């Protein structure tokens, strides 16, 4: 089966609609290539959309995403498929056949994002965008800045009455519970893998006992807590009891640089922590913050940022990896490490502990099935017709991601040129 708007010769497929995929798609399209951009989520923007602020300039993600969405909207060469994943790839450089599957949104293009369906819906689901820290209606807008600006319905979570109410509430006839998953095939000459990353599953770090306390969160959860469109409206509160934390601790290398988990450095976590200290400081001027680290890696221009944060007298840096976390009765947690500089065991009792969890490439599990070559850690290597960019290629910050995405666009253009 072929898409009704069948691909013109020399088209490029970009897999993943985060900052890297958006960049690669636009860079290729803006020099005249036809581009298919597919994204498994119901919205574009990926991890960046979930951030409160980028480092080092501390601007909100709308800053970079809005302009890219605008460019997509204005460029007829980019065709976007959300809720879509690659099922299989065949062929070779210049001539790939890619089978894709789109999951049903149960909301069609008539949607104006008025929200009447969500008001009518009586069922709730965990809010995945906020890492389950709150609930959303089963008929939901993924987030305030979602693009495309359309609702989604988690049909399986809705009861019959709720479904009827949702359908009745929609004035635009946008709800369609009969939508089916759709499989289709594209012929493309090059593929860009921009499949991104997932925060490392901290429950695998047995000694940190993440499930023992609500006071242990990941750094991505911290982004959501600090974000104005997050579960707390941007107020950093402890999940569970909504306490205003008086003390914080950051656990660096939670999963990274560890051959039992992720053997590489995830690159962004040190800077993410530095950035998140600024979030805390803006809300809690006197909060005590302790950072446990092995090495602080804030290369190049990030050194200045680090120096500024380290000048804060209420932030303590301890060289030593946290190897034990004990849940306390008052809802806080005690972190235990050895200070490798003084040689003493130190423990810090804090109200909220943030694990600087590393980046696990999303392609890790799927790459073999799709016939993609990866390095030992699941990062995609790429070849003549396919390339990887962003965090599908290596753990990287946004700047590096957009650079490698531009490079990938260039490779895709070259591959499609060769094939014509």
């Amino acid at each position, binding site marked *: 089966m072929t898409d009704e708007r069948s691909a013109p010769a020399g088209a490029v497929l970009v897999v993943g609609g985060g900052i890297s995929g958006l960049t690669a798609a636009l860079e290729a399209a803006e020099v005249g290539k036809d581009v298919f951009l597919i994204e498994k989520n119901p919205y574009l923007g990926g991890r960046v959309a979930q951030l409160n602020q980028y480092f080092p300039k501390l601007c909100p993600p709308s800053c970079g995403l809005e302009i890219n969405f605008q460019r997509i909207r204005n460029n007829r060469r980019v065709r976007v498929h959300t809720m879509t994943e690659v099922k299989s790839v065949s062929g070779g450089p210049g001539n790939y056949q890619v089978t894709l599957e789109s999951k049903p949104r149960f909301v069609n293009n008539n949607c104006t994002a008025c929200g009447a369906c969500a008001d009518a819906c009586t069922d709730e689901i965990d809010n995945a965008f906020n890492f389950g820290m709150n609930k959303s209606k089963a008929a939901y807008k993924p987030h305030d800045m979602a693009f495309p600006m359309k609702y989604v319905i988690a049909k399986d979570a809705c009861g019959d009455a709720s479904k009827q109410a949702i359908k009745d509430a929609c004035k635009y006839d946008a709800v369609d519970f009969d939508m089916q998953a759709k499989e289709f095939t594209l012929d493309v000459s090059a593929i860009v893998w921009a499949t991104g990353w997932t925060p490392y599953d901290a429950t695998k770090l047995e000694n940190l006992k993440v499930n023992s306390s609500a006071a242990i969160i990941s750094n991505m959860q911290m982004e959501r807590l600090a974000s104005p469109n997050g579960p707390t409206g941007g107020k950093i509160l402890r999940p569970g009891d909504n306490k205003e934390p008086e003390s914080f601790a950051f656990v660096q290398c939670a999963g990274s640089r560890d051959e039992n988990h992720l053997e590489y450095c995830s690159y962004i976590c040190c800077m993410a922590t530095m950035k998140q200290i600024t979030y805390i400081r803006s809300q809690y001027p006197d909060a005590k913050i302790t950072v446990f680290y092995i090495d602080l890696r804030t290369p190049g221009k990030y050194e200045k940022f680090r120096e500024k944060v380290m000048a804060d007298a209420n932030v303590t840096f301890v060289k030593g990896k946290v*190897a034990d976390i004990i849940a306390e009765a008052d809802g806080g947690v005690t972190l235990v490490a050895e200070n*490798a500089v003084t040689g003493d065991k130190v423990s810090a009792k804090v109200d909220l502990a943030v694990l600087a969890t590393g980046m696990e490439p999303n392609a890790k599990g799927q790459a073999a099935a799709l016939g993609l070559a990866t390095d030992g850690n699941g990062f995609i290597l790429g070849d003549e017709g396919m390339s990887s960019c962003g965090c599908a290629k290596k753990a990287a910050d946004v700047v590096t991601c957009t650079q490698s995405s531009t490079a990938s666009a260039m490779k895709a253009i070259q591959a499609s040129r060769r094939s014509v």
Partner: protein
Amino acid sequence: MAIRVEPDLNFIKFLKSAGGDTLKKCYQCATCSVVCPLSSDNKPFPRKEMIWAQWGLKDRLVADPDVMLCHQCGDCTAYCPRGAKPGDVLGAIRAYAYTHYGFPNGLAKLVSQGKNLPILIGAPALLILIVWFLSGGMHLPQGDIDFGNFFGHGYFMGLTKNVLIIDAIFVPAFAFAVFAAYKGVSNMWNNMAAQLDVKSDFRPSVPQFITQFLVPSVKEILAHKRFKECGTNHDRVNGHLPLLLAFIGLFAVTTYGMIRKDIVGMFVEGLHGPIPLSDPFKILANVSAIALIVGVGILWMNRSRMEEENNASPTFYDWFLITKIMAVGVTGLCAELTRLIGIPVLAYLFYYLHLVTILMLFVYMPYSKFAHMVYRTFAMAFEKYRASEFVQKTEE
């Protein structure tokens, strides 16, 4: 506090050969010091030992009680993000320390390396073979097999020739081992005390030392208190406990046998034959022998499993002791069984091998992994001493 690092390359080479070849992978994250169930809150181990080892600071390491206090639970190795295996490295440092403190040093060095195995086995085997040959006992016995006639028949000053020969070999060997261990341990103690960096105005008297430091340590060892705190390698206590009790049982039996045969036997006739199977001490001996084989067998399997799971590296240091104890147990049991069944050739052969393995166990005790029984005991005593008033109240 500036430290001038003067690495001793030979020391690092030794560690690598003794199973510490992973030590350079350590990047000092200090996970090990926290996950270690035996480490203290004050200057925990083994992170600091890892960097000292990387720097080749052997003088600090051999004077560090923590190295001896480590029971190689394996939790540090399991959680190590770099595969640096701190547990193995500390084991290698202990092996080095036994060689370092070993007296005489030449023998200690000889025992530390697998390539010397032909000499290590050959010398005692030859010694006993020559004595056996010269004793005139090297022929098949007439009638019942009695190891009391192994080195021939005859009496001298009320003792059998056999008893005299056995005593002439094993009493000096045992005394030598005790003396060598004493030399090594007292050296270690002095080095450890020097590292404390406090002046001791008061020294504990010998009875004080024994009651306040040594006896509590021995009690702790017998109870396997620390072994039981181990996480990853918790099963090891199931092997070590029966093995330790077996050694105590066999020591008691041997002492009883010596008093019965060698002392009382001088005055009372008929005590030189084999002790009857129904004798309580013979029962203890047999139970201990089985506990010894079972215990060391469990440790053997445990060690193999750890190595298979890559939680430990195979080393001569570890396997020499395990196989040696297994050999003592198996040869002893086989000698007894073939004696009871009545196969003289095998009985005598196994008895000969049994004597050889016991001699090896005695003489190599102060330098092989077996030395841990004295070094670790005294390190535990030192730990208590360090925390005691003898050290703490000397400041003012």
